[in-house]
């Protein structure tokens, strides 16, 4: 059972967290024409690195969506970063 630091709450165990996506995915502007490949890349392609990864997670209890930097082999967590400003 791993422990992740919620940028707001602090350390909680992994059962309180939900993996959302790899970081850096930007939704294409769908009001203009985009090709199938561009859309499929956004929807499905994963970097899936073995090693240091940057991911977007949700802390299910306080609903914080944040950036988590961790290692996908050792499971060591290096940092969690809030995505929120002005709060």
């Amino acid at each position, binding site marked *: *059972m*791993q422990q992740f630091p919620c940028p707001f709450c602090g350390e909680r165990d*992994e*059962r309180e*967290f*939900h*993996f959302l996506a790899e970081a850096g995915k930007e939704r294409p502007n769908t009001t203009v024409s985009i090709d*199938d*490949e561009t*859309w*499929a*890349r956004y*929807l*499905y*392609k*994963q*970097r*899936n*690195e*073995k090693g240091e*990864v940057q*991911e977007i997670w949700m802390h299910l209890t306080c609903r914080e969506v944040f950036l988590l930097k961790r290692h*996908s*082999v*050792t*499971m060591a967590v290096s940092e969690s970063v809030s995505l929120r400003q002005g709060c």
Partner: protein
Amino acid sequence: MPSHYSAYSLFREGLRQQSGWGKAWRSPKPKKHYEVIIIGAGGHGLATAYYLAKNHGVRNVAVIDKGWLGGGNTGRNTTTIRSNYYYPESCALYDLSVQLYENLSRELNYNVMFSQRGVLTLCHSDPEMEMGARFTNAMKLNGVDAELIDVAAVKQRAPILNFQTDARYPIHGAIWQARAGTARHDAVAWGYARAADALGVDIIQQCEVRELILENGACAGVRTAHGDIRANKIGAAVAGHSSVLANLANITLPIHSYALQAFVSEPLKPIMNTVALSPASGTYFSQSDKGGLVIGGGIDRVPSYGQRGNLPAQETVLSGLIEMAPALAKVKLLRHWAGIVDVTPDSSPILGPSGVDGLYLNCGWGTGGFKAIPAGGLLFAHLLATGQHHVISQPFDLNRFAQGRLIDEGAASGIAH
């Protein structure tokens, strides 16, 4: 020289202190060039090499692996073989595999112990029985054996399950596939390795691919711990590490790697003669010939390349088992481990060209690679030998994602795969 295996040879070798057994496979030095290189000496890679040699006469083949043959997911799974799928595309693929398994021991002259003891997919409510009917009909229409059986028939096949009416998930019936079953996982890898080796395939173990040799946008070989090895075509069958390999060719795949845990209990006298899956918890189990309960369930919640188990997933899977068969709560767990599985968005595999000339992919099997080894090997061999898809592998091409043509079994049936 490889020995032929039979009751007679076993008797003879018993008399002469086993001295006559030859090597199951050689340990050759890699050549400078092959017609085909297959990266990954797991079940899929070895089977591919075997069918390349046997079906297509392509014998100048190397299978290379960074570790030992059969040392990845092939030797870490729960050994279930079945073709209880919903879509025609999936049925064609997985039933081809079951058919190949049915004759595999004799074909390879190696007992892979395919035990067609049947698989029960339990239905716990009236709506699940309706979904079971939809599923069973689909299988039958796709030419796969299936039956929707009632609770009495489930009890007859697996009396150790929970038939109490106040169970959390009472059993209403099940989808039954009689031809499904289990096999000895290591034997599948070893059997294919031995047969491929006998046909001239070089199996090169402990030889990590560090780079792909890319020339004019095409893949021309591999750079390994033992030097460069070139080939006309390269096939990758590296399961959970597919993204890492793809990265060497500067491509990204629609794959995420997760740890999938499996569990084995202390050996017991026979108590369970079939395989049972409960969709309520995603837990399934069978009993190995050695007597251990072999238990599996869903993937861990955290994307991972770490081949370690994790307590929350264990709690989910094993509490699910206790609910399925409360009498087994007292059974002791002997060992649990994890394999790294390559999960695609639709949980169906990817077979086909990678987008880089000369490099082909066999990946994305996720939690279901073992059952597909013979078919995956046969279809991948066809692709590598002819450059063309076999009609069965065509739908599983990488291009399905851009076309929105997913083959999403989970979406269709609500039953985990």
